[in-house]
């Protein structure tokens, strides 16, 4: 492109600062949302990897066991019998620390004498050595721990201070023996969420006599394989050798679908932003039609015109992307809390100290932003380049072309909708394909928007005519500027349809979960130790607590459950729940059950069969006639599946087995939760109070009535969806900017018309009325058209995306209020967007406007 063309583009952008700013803002917001979500997902993921990698250290293999861990004799055997030297025993679990704001941290018990080849928390050669006093206290004194100096300083703690640790139902105190300050960055970051203890101290604190795992450094290649075989030969049933990397990857996979859903939702804001770019670039082309015509007449080629328009869009894209990066980092800091909260609630424990600003994320987000800008600008740029100079893009020519294109556009919309439906209907488990189908459906509805707008305006004309000349003008003005108004309406419609779709999906989800809780939770009182995860009770609880509860006056009977993670040769890590009885009183809803529920339970108890939850069945593609193989303390065991039940507590799925069966297979004396059924006439709330009083001071138990438990489940539910609300809001803001930009463009285009109206005697107030009527109509059209679009979106989210992402069957539940609220959002957004243009229009210099072209 020549320098003069470059200057032309540059001056145009500078002459229309507000239009340029709005586009830059639209791109910036879209890019920011994409970057923020990616940063949050990435930070959580990296924090988890770093902490697990840092904890695994240089271990190449780990010996792991069942729920009860690895017998510690094995450590001795490895050293003595096999002569292994690079072996380190580990005891670890999550605890909460009051002095650190009750956040979950990992208590890592190590043997300082075996540690050197694995980790360098206790100091490398470059570090300042720990004092002998601190080391002695760490090894010799009970309940002493090491803490990171950074964490200690952040929380106003120092060596010698006491920490209150929450470990399951117990609270214990530990003393800080010393502060660790490793120079190694990896170790430093790992220590952000770590308490280090001597292995015997950790065992005492956690009340266990087994090890969590044994770390090994084995040679690579055949020698390593041979070593693994040699080790495996001495291991008892239920204990095996794993590679830490595989384990980390498996855990991280848990939240993959959740993160993918967030990413898809974040892309929506960018799609809405693309409408804005398209609209603005079209406007810039139309506005400069004489200039473009002259340039063509002077010999500027079509390619150069195309490059000029695209170049301007690229400049705005780059500036928007740059701002988007900054905004994305700020937004990412806000969003990371919400994302990690949900990951902690539902998937695994991760502490994110800060947002990890990965350059790849910034680059990716910026490229997406710039490419979106170029893609959105390509059509108007092509139009500018392809039309002959004489007819060069008069607004009326464009409008008549759009009117002529309406049938084709609508057909294209219908076609794309069909493509979307095929993608959704195709038998695939790919969530990405499903989202492509979803996007196709949304774009299809957007392509139908011009046709719908014309239809709505024709319908509105007659009733609005009663308002007089302004009422007759408003719908016609919208149709007359259809190429502009319909794009703004489409942008707002997409944003609002997302609100409807996601709200209906969340509402349906909430309703399904509520109904499921009502049928599944039949006991009156639920007791469990405090848990790190919100959707599982895994912390061990002494059986004596269950007996104490059972003996309470007013308790008719109790049932209990043990929730553990075990390994499966086919499915990796599996959540196994063992129950003493069917707590739902046979009301648990089943998707499929072999024979009757009673018969299935009987078979489970007598023959050692299991039930699996719907997500488990979906994820692992198992069902009727299949079986599940698990590593037990008695070795590998296969269990026939006798039923698939609905369950919404975990998207990873659960294997459910009778407690009696569990106890024969696993050496695990603990329970995870107890459910109490009260006698007739007993007030559960009063009994909850009595139980709390009874256990106060001895056991930190969470004792809740049936209603209380349901409420807390729903609280976690709402928390999980908090981020979607924020994303919806951002998409709406981008759409709002789109409407504002479209209205301002319309104002510039209609300057003479508005000037004439004012010269003819239209007051500023009447002009305001006209603008508001027009924006109101645009908002109403967007709001009304968003209803079928949003409902389609909801159906896809409920029946396809949710199913393929999480394996859940949800029942559609439509609250009319969701539609009304969304309509109100569209209308209010449009009216608000109309305020500034209305002010500007009413202040228009009539004398200039009536002469303007």
């Amino acid at each position, binding site marked *: 492109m020549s320098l003069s063309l470059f200057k032309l583009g540059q001056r145009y952008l500078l002459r229309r600062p507000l239009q340029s700013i709005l586009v830059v803002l639209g791109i910036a917001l879209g890019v920011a949302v994409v970057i923020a979500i990616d940063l949050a997902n990435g930070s959580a993921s990296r924090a988890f990897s770093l902490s697990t990698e840092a904890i695994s250290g240089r271990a190449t293999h780990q010996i792991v066991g069942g729920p009860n861990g690895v017998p510690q004799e094995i450590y001795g055997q490895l050293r003595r019998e096999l002569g292994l030297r690079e072996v380190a025993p580990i005891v670890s679990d999550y605890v909460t620390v009051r002095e650190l704001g009750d956040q979950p941290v990992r208590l890592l018990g190590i043997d300082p004498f075996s540690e050197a080849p694995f980790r360098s928390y206790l100091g490398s050669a470059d570090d300042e050595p720990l004092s002998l006093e601190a080391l002695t206290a760490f090894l010799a004194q009970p309940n002493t721990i090491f803490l990171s100096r950074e964490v200690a300083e952040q929380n106003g703690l120092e060596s010698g201070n006491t920490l209150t640790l929450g470990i399951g139902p117990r609270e214990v105190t530990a003393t800080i023996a010393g502060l660790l300050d490793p120079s190694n960055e990896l170790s430093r970051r790992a220590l952000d969420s770590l308490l280090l203890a001597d292995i015997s101290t950790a065992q005492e604190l956690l009340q266990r006599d087994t090890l969590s795992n044994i770390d090994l450094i084995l040679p690579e290649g055949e020698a390593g394989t041979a070593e693994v075989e040699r080790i495996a030969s001495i291991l008892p049933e239920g204990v095996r050798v794993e590679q830490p990397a595989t384990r980390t990857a498996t855990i991280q996979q848990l939240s993959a679908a959740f993160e993918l859903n967030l990413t898809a939702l974040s892309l929506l804001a960018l799609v809405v932003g693309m409408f804005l770019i398209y609209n603005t670039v079209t406007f810039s082309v139309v506005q400069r039609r004489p200039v473009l015509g002259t340039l063509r007449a002077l010999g500027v080629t079509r390619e150069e015109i195309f490059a000029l328009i695209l170049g301007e869009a690229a400049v705005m894209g780059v500036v928007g992307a740059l701002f988007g990066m900054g905004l994305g980092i700020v937004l990412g800091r806000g969003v990371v809390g919400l994302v990690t909260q949900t990951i902690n609630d539902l998937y695994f424990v991760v502490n994110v100290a800060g947002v990890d600003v990965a350059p790849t994320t910034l680059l990716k987000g910026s490229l997406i932003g710039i490419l979106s800008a170029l893609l959105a600008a390509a059509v108007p740029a092509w139009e500018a380049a392809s039309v002959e100079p004489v007819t060069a893009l008069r607004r*009326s020519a464009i409008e008549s072309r759009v009117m002529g294109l309406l049938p084709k556009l609508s057909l294209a919309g219908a076609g794309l909708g069909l493509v979307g439906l095929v993608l959704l209907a195709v038998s695939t488990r790919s969530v990405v394909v499903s989202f492509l189908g979803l996007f196709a459906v949304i774009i299809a509805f957007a392509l139908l928007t011009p046709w719908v707008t014309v239809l709505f305006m024709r319908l509105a004309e007659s009733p609005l*005519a009663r308002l*007089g*000349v302004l009422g*007759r*003008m408003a719908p*016609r*003005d919208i149709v*007359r500027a259809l190429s502009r108004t319909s794009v703004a309406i489409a942008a707002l419609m997409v944003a609002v349809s997302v609100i409807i779709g996601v709200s209906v999906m969340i509402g349906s989800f909430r309703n399904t979960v509520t109904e499921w809780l009502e049928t599944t939770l039949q006991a009156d009182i639920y007791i469990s130790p405090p848990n790190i995860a919100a959707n599982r009770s895994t912390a061990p609880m002494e059986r004596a607590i269950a007996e104490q509860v059972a003996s309470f006056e007013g308790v008719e009977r109790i049932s209990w459950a043990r929730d553990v993670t075990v390994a499966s040769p086919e499915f990796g890590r599996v959540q196994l729940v063992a129950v003493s009885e069917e707590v739902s009183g046979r009301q648990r809803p089943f998707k499929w059950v072999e024979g009757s529920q009673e018969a299935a339970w009987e078979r489970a108890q007598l023959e050692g069969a299991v039930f699996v939850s719907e997500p488990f069945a979906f994820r692992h593609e198992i069902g009727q006639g299949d079986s599940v193989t698990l590593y037990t303390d008695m070795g590998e065991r296969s269990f026939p599946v006798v039923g698939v039940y609905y369950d919404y507590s975990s998207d990873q799925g659960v294997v459910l087995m009778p407690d009696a069966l569990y106890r024969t297979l696993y050496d695990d004396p603990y329970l995870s939760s107890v459910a109490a059924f009260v006698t007739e006439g007993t007030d559960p709330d009063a009994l909850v109070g009595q139980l709390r009083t009874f256990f106060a001071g001895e056991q930190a138990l969470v004792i809740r009535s049936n209603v209380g438990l349901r409420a807390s489940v729903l609280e976690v539910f709402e928390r999980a969806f908090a981020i979607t609300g924020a994303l919806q809001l951002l998409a709406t803001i981008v759409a709002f900017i789109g409407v504002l930009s479209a209205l301002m463009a319309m104002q510039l285009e209609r300057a*003479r*018309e508005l*000037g*004439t*109206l*004012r*010269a*003819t*005697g*239209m*007051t*500023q107030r*009447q002009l305001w009325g006209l603008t508001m009527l027009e924006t109101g109509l645009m908002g109403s059209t967007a709001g009304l058209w968003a209803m079928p679009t949003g409902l389609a979106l909801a159906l896809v989210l409920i029946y396809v995306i949710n199913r393929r992402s999480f394996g859940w069957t949800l029942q559609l539940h439509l609250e009319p209020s969701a539609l009304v609220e969304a309509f109100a959002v569209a209308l209010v957004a449009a009216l608000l967007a109309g305020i500034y243009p209305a002010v500007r229009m009413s202040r228009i*210099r*009539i*004398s200039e406007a*009536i*002469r303007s072209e």
Partner: protein
Amino acid sequence: MTPPETAAVRVEGLTKIYDESRSGRAVLGDVNATFFTGQFSVLLGRSGSGKSTLLNLISGIDLPTRGEIWIGDVNVTRLSERERTLLRRRDIGFVFQFFNLIPTLTAGENVSLPLELGGMIEKQARKRAETLLDRVSLANRMDDYPDRLSGGEQQRVAIARALAHQPSLILADEPTGNLDEETGQTVLTLLLELVRESGKTMIMATHSLEIVPYADHVFRMTEGQLVEERRHRMERRVM
């Protein structure tokens, strides 16, 4: 006996400076003139001489830097923005060079626009529009949108619109400037005929000397100054 001439519009010491630079550019400099009731006055001058600015100031769509404008006994420069708008709606009709019809309103609706803005009910306004369009020989184009009309037809609709609310003052800014000679002549004849017939005052800005013979008064404008004033009595030629 000829009735005494009364001033329909009076401008005194009218100055308009556009503050385009620090020094400002005077488009009108200390202009004084009187336009009499029922008469047709022409502001003759080249492009940029200040004719349109003077019309804009008289109609109140722009404000002078200094000086006063009187329409009858109303001092326009003392009115608020709203009062000036209402004054235009009530007392002034505009005819523009580029017709300035509202593209989303039919010919009939364009004519009834000032009536409806003033609160007249649609039915009555439509009836009045019908009468006026009939008067400009466009009764059959009542429901056509402007883009279906020729330039001459559009200007005839604009004339009907300017007269619809029976204003006492018609301001015409180069009304034939965008029409071919023959159509321009037809439109001019029609405009003058209607204005004379209803006894209205008309001030027309033009650069065409051909209009001069039809005027009662001719004001020549050069660089923002009224440098010459001549009086004609040629109306009989068109009446």
